[in-house]
């Protein structure tokens, strides 16, 4: 075994990657099918704003979870609520929300960097699995279990609603409840994965696995499992790369993901 793998912080990093991958890989096809890539990116940015808010409110700089979860959930569910009550298209509304989140985030981050070292904020921006704590792992595991318990029973209803809202309505599915439920699970998954991926890149692990798997699968079942596999290979591979070469874990994972995507496109052409 390479010496690096014997260090507890590296083992925690790999475990975090191995938990985040199935979590985001499982959600990835639903995110792509429901066209929530942009939304996911904005929630990642909202998490960053939540980090700054938490630090300013006195939470620990490496685990401001109460503020991050609270702000991100408020942000995500608020967006869904607004979209359901306005005539605005989803991407327009998400664009407005992105502007607000960035504006607020920048103001808060400037205030934060006056009190803390800017490198402590970089971990939230780009991911830093080497600083993963047992609390981070516990939260990742808990959200993974919560996702399986809440999402899977509603998956078929969500998919029918995605294919044709009219068919879902006639089937008397609880469309609004399912949407809020999915956004809750998605937001939690994004928030607890920020340590691994970074706020700016967490969306990649929600989009690229499904985009990669989509090139070579025909069924939804195959799509979802291959998406999990792609996420797992990229996450663990990216963490190993970031351990050996001194680069942020989020960036390394994104590069591995991009390589896998390129391979899948090449395979499809054949």
């Amino acid at each position: 075994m390479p010496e690096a793998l014997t260090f507890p912080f590296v083992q925690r990093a790999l475990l975090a990657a191995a938990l985040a991958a199935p979590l985001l890989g499982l959600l990835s096809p639903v995110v792509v099918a429901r066209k929530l890539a942009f939304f996911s990116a904005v929630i990642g940015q909202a998490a960053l704003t939540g980090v700054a808010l938490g630090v300013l409110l006195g939470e620990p700089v490496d685990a401001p979870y109460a503020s991050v979860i609270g702000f991100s959930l408020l942000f995500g569910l608020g967006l869904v609520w607004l979209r359901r009550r306005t005539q605005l298209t989803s991407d327009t509304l998400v664009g407005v929300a992105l502007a607000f989140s960035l504006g607020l985030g920048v103001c808060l981050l400037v205030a934060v960097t006056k009190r803390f070292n800017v490198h402590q904020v970089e971990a939230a921006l780009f991911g830093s699995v080497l600083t993963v704590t047992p609390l981070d792992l516990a939260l990742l595991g808990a959200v993974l279990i919560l996702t399986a318990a809440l999402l899977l029973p509603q998956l078929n209803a969500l998919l029918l609603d995605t294919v044709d809202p009219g068919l879902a309505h006639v089937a008397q599915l609880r469309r609004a409840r399912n949407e809020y439920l999915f956004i809750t699970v998605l937001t939690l998954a994004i928030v607890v994965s920020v340590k691994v991926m970074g706020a700016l890149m967490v969306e990649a692990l929600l989009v690229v696995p499904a985009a990669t798997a989509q090139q070579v699968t025909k069924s939804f079942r195959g799509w979802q499992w291959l998406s999990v596999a792609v996420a797992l290979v990229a996450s663990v591979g990216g963490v190993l790369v970031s351990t050996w070469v001194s680069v942020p874990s989020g960036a390394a994972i994104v590069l591995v993901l991009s390589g896998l995507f390129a391979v899948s496109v090449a395979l499809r052409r054949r």
Partner: protein
Amino acid sequence: MEGVALDVVGLSVPGRLFDVSLQVRAGTVHAVVGPNGAGKSTLLGCLAGTTAHDGAVRWNVRGRLSLVPQRLAVPSWPLVVAEFLALHVGARPLTVGPGHGAEAQARHALSLVGASELADRPLRTLSTGQLQRVLLAQALVPAPAAVLLDEPEAGLDQESLTWLDGQLQALRRRGATVVWVTHDAARARTFADQTTALLGGRRA
């Protein structure tokens, strides 16, 4: 209201439908005809509950109400026909596969519309006629008490139209109440028990 499966009173949608009333007898095929823009699909949306409206829509059927939409925005993502049909029959999450019961129901639905060979085809690879069969299949299993058909003949060739006529008669034989929106008045006269004509959002 003995024998009335659907009672519609004073149905209005601003700018699209004006004070439309009609009754549909149980176990009959009721056609709604009219030219483009007459309000047929709006009326069907009200009956399905997907379009907000004034006035009353009272269903008096026991069992499933199913819908065959005029067109489906076919997903560009991976979904095979059997999986799509499994979404309608209370299957296990697709992540773990729909299960034997749901799969058997999906295959039964396809056999009812003569399309068993489509079960493992991705939805995005189907022709218009094949897609129409799959849309009808999802409406047939589980067996519906009432079916809403929104111009199911759109885009079909003559052979598929003949097949569709047979399906309408089969639905009637099974005792289902059918509301069939169509622009083909001649076909409606041939196959429907009752007809409501719309023009400019009003009963003609």
